[in-house]
């Protein structure tokens, strides 16, 4: 294994690739790929997947090495950029960045955008490195790890994610559960995943796929906040009119990751593990990490109002997931995400077959892919840090200019994903719904979490029960499942225990629910 690692390092730093008459050093290719990934990642509704799909015909005559370097770096390049827009203007660049909005944007509203962006950059870079190191460490056992997860484990992961609803609704549990219930109801719109029956589609093709995440996030986060901003008569997002008046600093944000190092490590572990499991996705991972951050800290009242830990957790998780999501690709040829699917396509197009052959004879190529991912993750954070002073200006732009711009961006982002006008309409429906929920203190995050996790919860519950009925699944014979049950119980009980202690000690705690 070490020989393969050395070989890949030599190819990357000392080798070059021919493009017609031009020879380009291999190290330049992940830099170019990173910039391409960032370009697509920062546009709402469009992601690195689009960039990769566009580039496929361009690479037909290329050799394998530049293709691996390019696609691996585009894959890694898109993740961080989405968090810049999530923090500054409450628009998640990609669905996994949505959890960053919950505390990142409130920090921008308080004039602390630099701190949030600094924390995001550091957590992303370090989380990505963590994911890559775990990926390398997992190489000998990745197959067994992927095979260990089945419907029972996926179901418990969904339940674990849903318990976050109870935590973020603390102090207003009825409203939180109501919002979660609506989210679950919305999750069931579309085709029954097991029988194929259509549910609540009202005879339309549009609703057959259910509620899409892009209109949900754009509506509930961007449009809601812009309506709120306009209605509040606030002059700018941050309330300040000049950049010099902004508080917080880049370095304060970077150092905060070290201050909350335990949370960073736990979130990175969550991201890497969830990334390894095909079918879960980065969106689920980042919300589970956010929920874990809320559940695992004693003083969690500021979550949803601008707590830096609410930025560190999902950002670390999101980038650690990239490394994890390559595990099923390399071990089985099974992509853990759409981006990983295109990396796989690029590999197959050039004759590189994932699985045992890749992990033995061509291990140096697997390391090359890992290098590309690592470089792009680090580079995006470095570039993000370099442009912080320019991008934070968004938070001092006058509302009269910003709100229409954001609405236009939301329309473009909603339309760009599927070119469906229904998505644009749905974005504004969710925008209005989100505004009303915010006004009446119903936590939006509960609805969003329930909607995201609903299908995962339903499908895996039904499959697990069916396998149990067929005699193929003994719940008590699955240690990971039992471990997740225990962890979930602890996650639910512990906050209530804390709450009881607090009531006995210092009175009733302020609920973060209504501010979400």
């Amino acid at each position, binding site marked *: 294994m070490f020989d393969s690692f050395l070989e890949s390092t030599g190819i990357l730093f000392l080798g070059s690739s021919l493009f017609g008459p031009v020879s380009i050093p291999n190290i330049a290719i992940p830099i170019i790929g990173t910039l391409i990934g960032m370009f697509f990642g920062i546009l709402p509704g469009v992601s690195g997947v689009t960039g990769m799909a566009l580039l*496929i*015909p361009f690479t037909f005559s290329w050799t394998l090495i530049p293709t691996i370097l390019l696609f691996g770096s585009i894959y890694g390049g898109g993740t961080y950029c989405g968090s810049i827009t999530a923090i500054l203007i409450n628009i998640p660049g990609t669905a996994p960045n949505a959890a960053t909005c919950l505390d990142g944007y409130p920090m921008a509203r308080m004039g602390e955008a630099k701190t949030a962006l600094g924390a995001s950059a550091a957590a992303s870079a370090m989380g990505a490195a963590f994911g890559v190191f775990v990926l390398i460490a997992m190489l000998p056992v990745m197959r067994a790890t992927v*095979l260990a997860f*089945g419907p029972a484990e996926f179901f418990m992961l969904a339940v674990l994610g849903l318990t976050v609803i109870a935590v973020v609704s603390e102090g207003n549990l009825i409203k939180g559960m109501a919002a979660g219930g609506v989210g679950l109801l919305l999750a069931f719109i579309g085709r029954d995943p097991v029988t194929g029956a259509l549910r609540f589609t009202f005879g339309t093709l*549009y609703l057959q796929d259910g509620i899409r995440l892009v209109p949900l996030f754009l509506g509930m986060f961007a449009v809601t906040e812009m309506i709120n901003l306009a209605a509040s008569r606030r002059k700018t997002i941050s309330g300040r009119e000049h950049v010099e008046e902004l508080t917080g600093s880049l370095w304060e944000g970077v150092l905060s990751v070290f201050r909350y190092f335990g949370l960073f490590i736990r979130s990175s572990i969550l991201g890497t593990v969830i990334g390894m499991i095909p079918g879960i996705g980065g969106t689920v991972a980042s919300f589970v990490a956010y929920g874990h951050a809320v559940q695992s800290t004693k003083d969690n009242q500021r979550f949803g109002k601008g707590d830096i830990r609410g930025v560190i957790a999902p950002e670390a998780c999101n980038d650690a997931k990239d490394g994890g999501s390559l595990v099923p690709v390399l071990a089985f040829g099974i992509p853990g995400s*759409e981006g990983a699917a*295109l990396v796989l396509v690029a590999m197959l*197009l050039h004759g590189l077959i994932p699985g045992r052959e890749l992990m033995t004879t061509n291990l140096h190529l697997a390391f090359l892919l890992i290098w590309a991912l690592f470089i792009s993750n680090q580079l995006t954070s470095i570039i993000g840090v370099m442009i912080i002073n320019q991008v934070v200006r968004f938070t001092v732009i006058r509302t009269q200019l910003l709100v229409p711009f954001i609405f236009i961006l939301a329309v473009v982002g909603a339309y760009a994903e599927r*070119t469906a006008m229904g998505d644009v309409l749905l974005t504004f429906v969710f925008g209005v719904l989100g505004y009303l929920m915010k006004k009446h203190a119903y936590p939006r995050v509960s609805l969003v979490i329930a909607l995201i996790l609903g299908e995962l919860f339903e499908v895996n519950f039904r499959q697990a029960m069916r396998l149990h009925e*067929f005699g193929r699944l003994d719940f008590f014979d699955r240690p990971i499942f039992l471990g997740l049950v225990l962890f979930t119980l602890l996650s639910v009980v512990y906050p209530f225990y804390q709450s009881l202690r607090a009531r006995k000690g210092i009175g009733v705690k302020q609920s973060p629910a209504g501010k979400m």
Partner: protein
Amino acid sequence: MTKKSISRRVFLEKVGGAVAGFALLGPWAGRVVAAGTCFPSGTTVRWIVPFSAGGGYTLYSRILEPFLEDAVGAEIVVENHPGAGGATGSTKLFKATPNGRTIGIVNAGGILMSGIAGEVDFTIERYTILGRVVDTRQVICVGKPTFDKGIRTIEDVLQVKEPLIWGVTGPGSNEFFGAAVLSHLLGIKRRFLSGYPGSTEYVLAAAKGEIDLVESTFSSLISPIEAGDLVPLALVGPKVPEHAIFEKKRIPSVMEIAKMVGANASDVLGAAQVTAAGRVVVGPPGIPADVTKCLSNGLYEAMTNPGLKAIADGARRPIDPIGAEEARRALLEAAVSAKKFKKIWQQAVKELGT
């Protein structure tokens, strides 16, 4: 098509593509489209893909794109319109203006399924058929853990006392139709486990031993077969895929199995034709005959280009082209079979929920 009518997404796509191509000095950058053969010079043809950007249909489209541009003399712009299991994009394609400037690639089997389910009000044969890129001939495989327990051949499958578990995505898929009808006709005892998002997920389930049988296209299953996670048991169709695995060990076709068990071999062949209906290139109904002929000839020329075959073989995405007329005949036969087995399929769908 003028620039004004190009959608915002196409514009973004063009900008992104131009930036990427220029920056990378790829040999395709700045490629010059040959002077028009089917259309006036400078014409753009929209190519609709009813699935998302990361899947096989997009891959085939991207592989075909440059060769088709040269063959028909127009710029091809690939547009993804996913949704409703392909029905959204297929419907958009069906209702497009029939001037030859909107064509696309569809899952013919999926449209047949949507038709018998009553979810769309059109049928595959009503499109203007331009050709078929590849058939979606399927292979039935057993998972390694089940193989190790003694289910090693199709004869073992036919003799089980307890039903085997067959993993499927859902009732709208080709593989479910094949599994439902073939297991009924051949007398295979099975129960379905549905809800897998795609073939990769149920392949993983078979590799874990959660389920026993899977059925999918050979190109989807070749990697797990080579890795030893799946073992092929039967070919759904008469053609044997070109691969060393089938040279080493003879795998029977479902028609041969039909004769073995005394089932109607032509019924079994009909069911196989539905599942193998393929990835078909179509346009909306009513494209003028001269444009149709030019497009279908150009498509066939592109699909039979040795350069395309080399790229597709390298990507393990076989190209097995047939021309417009032959494709149309095959689809008509498949449509007849789909209607014939509708009741068996509906019965199997009911079982999914019990």
